[in-house]
């Protein structure tokens, strides 16, 4: 009788070995994840300088802190399941995963974590270089740093579950790239990747808090930068937990319905 932890251990060994073989493409994605926050950091620093050093409660060194922490939070929370499932479902390779006596989400989770461990040696030096170059102002209160850990893990869990559920839209449509694009555009604005949420128009801030976007990336960043009160932090953790539960519920329902319509094109 093997438990789920044995499955995870074995899967982890396998994926890690295969990713170390094919590391090039994983590193290229990492370059993307370093470059994007760097570009917005530069842009917002220019805005702050043009506005006399400060904009919406951020000066240049606070923007630097925001986007460097954002970069690291993105590293922990990213997933690529939305691209992968389009391929898996359209080409029918999902069939193999369905034959295994374990839910395919476990494999995806292990793949995801492995890729993050492998790219960490590139990400951390990049963050260190950016810290040296842009001199961020960073002094989180101790309680916020402590709450940051569960907030970060919950953010990853919510993002993973939401994106995994959305990826299943490939069961019903072959035009997944449109779904993906709509989602990523919304995420760019609403999860704080383009600018701190507090700089966006009010209606976008409301949308970001009502939808899961703020809780997937922005919230842990705001928390670690000391921009939230204790009450706001606790409410945020509650919102994350609520979205995680709702997401899991949706995931279960959509997965069951999807597998029923899946006809393995090409198999």
């Amino acid at each position: 009788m093997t438990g789920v932890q044995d499955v995870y251990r074995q899967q982890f060994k396998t994926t890690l070995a295969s990713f170390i073989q094919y590391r090039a493409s994983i590193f290229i994605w990492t370059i993307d994840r370093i470059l994007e926050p760097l570009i917005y950091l530069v842009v917002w620093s220019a805005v702050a300088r043009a506005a006399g050093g400060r904009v919406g409660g951020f000066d240049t060194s606070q923007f630097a802190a925001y986007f460097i922490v954002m970069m690291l939070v993105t590293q922990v929370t990213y997933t690529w399941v939305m691209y992968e499932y389009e391929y898996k479902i359209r080409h029918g390779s999902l069939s193999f995963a369905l034959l295994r006596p374990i839910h395919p989400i476990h494999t995806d989770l292990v793949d995801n974590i492995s890729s993050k461990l492998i790219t960490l040696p590139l990400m951390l030096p990049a963050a260190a270089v950016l810290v040296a170059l842009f001199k961020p102002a960073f002094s989180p209160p101790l309680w916020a740093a402590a709450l940051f850990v569960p907030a970060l893990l919950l953010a990853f869990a919510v993002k993973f579950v939401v994106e995994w559920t959305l990826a299943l839209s490939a069961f019903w449509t072959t035009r997944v790239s449109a779904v993906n694009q709509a989602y990523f555009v919304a995420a760019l604005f609403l999860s704080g990747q383009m600018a701190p949420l507090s700089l966006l128009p009010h209606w976008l801030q409301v949308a970001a808090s009502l939808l899961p976007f703020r809780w997937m990336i922005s919230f842990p960043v705001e928390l670690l930068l000391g921009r939230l009160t204790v009450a706001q932090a606790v409410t945020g953790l509650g919102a994350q937990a609520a979205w995680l539960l709702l997401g899991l519920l949706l995931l279960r329902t959509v997965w069951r319905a999807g597998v029923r319509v899946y006809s393995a094109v090409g198999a």
Partner: protein
Amino acid sequence: MSLLRLVWIFFRVGVMGELAYRANFFMQLLESAVDLGTALGGLAVVFSYTATLGGWRPEEVAALVGVFFLVGGAIRLIVQPSMEQLLESVRDGTLDFTLTKPADSQVLVSIQRVEIWKLTDFVLGIAVIAVALTRLGARLGAREIAGFAAALIAGGIIVYSFWVILASLSFWFVRVENILVIFQSIYEAGRWPVTLYPRWLRIGLTFLVPVAFATTVPAQALAGRLSWQSLAGAYALAALLFAVARLLWRAGTRRYSGASA
């Protein structure tokens, strides 16, 4: 003249191939429009806090976004698909068929695949430039237009030569496609004026990966801020890269032995 006819024929073949998938046009149009909307939305947020960005006015940055879409569209329309095809044919040996044809092989390879629907980016880019320019108003004379065209041509030659250089490396190395993807990532930095970036990044984006000449310099010409020195510099770099690309292509095809032969 026969060169132009050749380009036209390949273009037509590409169009005919893609016309079989007409629904893709609407998807591509939607994607390009959303992409453009995102870029302009980002500008709107940024310019709600400042009147100028590093000396650039909103209309000027919008024109830059237009140039970014125009050049990016041209790359994805013909340069990128053709070069990706080249990598594949070097690997599986089908480049033989191209090399035996009685025309310049570099030309043939550079126009071998056209992804016609990417024209949407190209056209939307032109539209954005036009709108931005009308809002920029009267200061636009013949000198700016000529400077813009000249800078755009130089930028086009630079980007094309850069792609040929990277793709020619496939004669020596096996996995070059990853390098091409990196160029795509770095090209994203060209959405904003490179004059904003810190010095080390600006130099990298000008000479290491020549994004600056493809987007910022033509947009500077439109804003009437392009000195003849930097235009001359653009043409010097264009000539240099074009010559290097040509040399590398020659050396590469000499080295190529045809995997299938």
